[in-house]
């Protein structure tokens, strides 16, 4: 993706979060994450993303 694509995806995700509402935000993001992780080549790659996100969330 080029920077314009990333920009468009970022904006759409932000708007989606607002649309699903606060109570459903966790569910929405977990569904999205699982969908994307299930498309990884193998579990190892998926686990790397999980650990990275966990590390960054603790900052």
């Amino acid at each position, binding site marked *: 993706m080029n*920077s314009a694509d*990333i920009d468009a995806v970022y904006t759409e995700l932000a708007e989606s979060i607002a649309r699903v509402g606060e109570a459903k935000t966790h569910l929405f993001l977990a569904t999205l994450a699982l969908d994307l992780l299930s498309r990884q080549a193998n579990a190892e790659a998926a686990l790397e993303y999980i650990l990275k996100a966990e590390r960054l969330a603790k*900052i």
Partner: protein
Amino acid sequence: MRSAPSFPDEVPVLIVGGGPVGLSAAALLGRYGIDCLVLEADPSWCEGSRAICISRRSQEILGWIGAEQALLAKGLSWVGGRSYFRGTEVLHFEMPSERAQRFAPMINIQQYYIEQFAHAAALRTGRVDIRWSARVSTVRPQSSGVQVDFQTAEGRGRTVRADWVVACDGGRSTVREQLGLQLEGMQYEGRYVIVDIEQDTRREVERLAWFDPPSNPGSTILMHRQPDNVWRIDYQVAEHEDAAQAVKPENVLPRVQAHLDMIGETEPWKPLWISIYNAKCLTLADYRSGRVLFAGDAAHLVPIFGVRGLNSGLDDAGNLAWKLALVQQGRAGETLLDSYSVERVLATRENIAYGAKSTQFMAPPHRGFALMREAALRLALESPGVRSLINPRQTLPVEYVDSPLNEPDSGAAFRGDLRAGMPAPEARLRTLQGAGHLTALLGGGFVALYFSDSPHLPASLRPLVERPQPGVAALRLVRVATHGEPDERTVVDERNQAWPRYDAAEGTLYLIRPDGYVMGRWRGAAATAAGISQALRRALLETDDEQR
């Protein structure tokens, strides 16, 4: 008129508002041979530094009025910036720049200097009469002009009749209100306090941004250096904070001190100016209303993030001045002024789209954007691919897509990204005066760039140099050669920059508008004086309603 003590009863052009846009428009109109009266409600140049980032395009426009040297002598040039999340750098961006360029991508300078330079430039033309403390009260459009009532500095009521009024009277435009016109669009809730302080510093000139810095947890802070040892500091105000409280020195100064401490700027300092701001995306639907034309903040309000405010206002002035001059001199039909509105409304829509993107990051409008920004800043620590999200998307000249003035290409096809309706690309050239730049040829009238290595002008182009027109209607033919010696009509592209940037072949011809935009281009046998004359006639005299 000039500096006559009494006010004129009639003027060709009345400019309401003597801010940077009004004064620049006056200087350009004066240069193009039009007498103008400028009425400014305030007693002098603005207080506080206000707009401070002047884009390369704006520097070019200020160059047309002869303010280039003053601007470059005073301003601080810069090419990039850094953004930090907490204490860690997450973005280092650089704007396009090249060696020995005429202008840096951006310079920082206080708005009152721009006003001073434009004021001096306007007076140098000998055609501009500027009156301070003159407050417009009533605007009465008529079929072939406008009657305007105003109060003089001495409190006396006066009336002036103008063929044309250019409204440059800012966001709370009296002219706009008098005509019953409304800005359309939306505002953002997120507010920023703007503080200027005076402090000695040796720091590099860059755009600096901190997200959630230890000095002010949860806030966003921007810093820019200005001339005279002045820092511009912008910081985001928390949602619950009251605007009147937020600008009180006792609330502002400790936050500034904490941040200066954090970044190690320890010299003594004092505050100069404090203001508060929220992002707005507002525009008039049309910048022409009969004999009244709107420019700058009177026409549109765009977010500060990306510095499109004053810069777009100067572009308005640059776009409008040559058109209004040609119409006033009877060399173009009134409909040419509709192209001003078409082109600049398009520019505003683009500026608003970019400005809104920047604002969504700098002042997230809802929890979706707030949460995504938290994620993007963290991810940016480790994933360079997302760092572009943090980029402030600084202003760039806008392409006038589908402008009625754009001439379709003639002759063999052109390659590359350049098209009619885009700014003429820069190139370093050798000129009779020594090392020079292509853009320095622009801004005075029409320019025909003729790319050729033959010193003999073909007969089909000779009419272009045989019947010179006066003023801004003048068309200057400049031959761009790949080698050889420059002369009065020839520049040499010895670094091979111009030819590739214009996708030129022997005999390629470009017609550049007085505001530096490409109007049309021709190749081979299609490159004739007749082709250019026809394009000019069509644009200036025959642009009818259908083509609007």
